[in-house]
């Protein structure tokens, strides 16, 4: 919004990540992000933007700056380790005949 008295440098609101819980007992799922001047307005904006069609019963908002993420460029070395380690999956193991009902 440009207007008299505007310094010309436009301040932008902080970015918030939005998590929505669709029903009691389920996990919060990342729904998207939005801009808001503070956390209270972020919750209200999230209500307007992400629960228009009855998607949720509860909302979390987190400052995007508070999230520490893994480095996408390091994906190879970071996630390579599980390769070839099938024994980390339950299906790797054969059932023992002496244990019924497993």
């Amino acid at each position, binding site marked *: *919004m440009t207007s008299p008295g505007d310094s010309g440098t436009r301040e932008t*609101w902080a970015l918030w990540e939005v998590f929505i819980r669709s029903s009691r007992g389920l996990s919060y799922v990342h729904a998207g992000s939005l801009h808001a001047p503070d956390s209270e307005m972020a919750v209200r904006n999230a209500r307007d933007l992400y629960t228009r069609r009855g998607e949720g019963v509860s909302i979390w908002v987190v400052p995007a700056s508070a999230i520490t993420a893994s480095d996408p460029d390091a994906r190879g070395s970071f996630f390579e380790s599980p390769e070839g380690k099938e024994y980390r999956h339950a299906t790797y193991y054969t059932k023992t005949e002496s244990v019924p009902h497993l």
Partner: protein
Amino acid sequence: MIPNQRTATTALTPEAIVSSHTTAQAPVAEYALGLGDDALILAQRLGEWIANAPELEEDVALGNIGLDLLGHARSLLSYAGSAWGKSEDDLAYFRCEPEFRCRQLFEQPNGDFAQTIARQLIASVYFGELYRALQASDDPILAAIAAKAAKELAYHLDHSVQWLRRLGLGTEVSHERMQRGIDAMWPFVGELFSPDRYADAAPGIAVDPASLRDAFDALVPGLIADAGLEVPQVPFARGGGRDGIHSEALGPLLAEMQVLAREHPGASW
């Protein structure tokens, strides 16, 4: 007492009102038309913010509030129109300025964001109290429309209060603008609680506007003071919206709202 009276639950959407073939009695229709115009004109004003609000998120917030109000208007106009064989579109698009009955607050220009918030604060408290009282109406359709609207108004008020505080207690500029917005809208407060002859003609069904004043006075000046702002000491505007007397702001609004329907009657998309 009311012809073709239906259970209240069928009145929640304009489509349900139309398909129920309920016919409003003439005094009820006359009263509902004024309430419908209040909601319709404010909805149209809020729609002007789409793509113009300070942030995309506020486009959506103001748009949501506007759409809620449009929903109230559609129900009220559909119900009013049932008395005269007219549709909601007939009433919205094919009446002229003096035939509109909105109180003058609702047609006032958006101004800057702060002025819109000031107008919305006053409107949300007024609508909230009105619909709370109207739920006890002897007319079951009006009571059902009011019950649905009252829930939505709680959120509208919250939105206005949040911004009132942030702007009032924010920077020097935001404080000054918020005060200016309240100053600009305050003259139109008095009319909201002034006599409405259509309400007088529907006792037991309509809400007496004067009965809403105490609740407004108990809430709004305190909210304004909490935001570090002052309640203006100004004379009230002359009013007369219910009688078709409007400020210069309504004409251009109607022109924009009605032009498409009038150039292409019956068009649908």
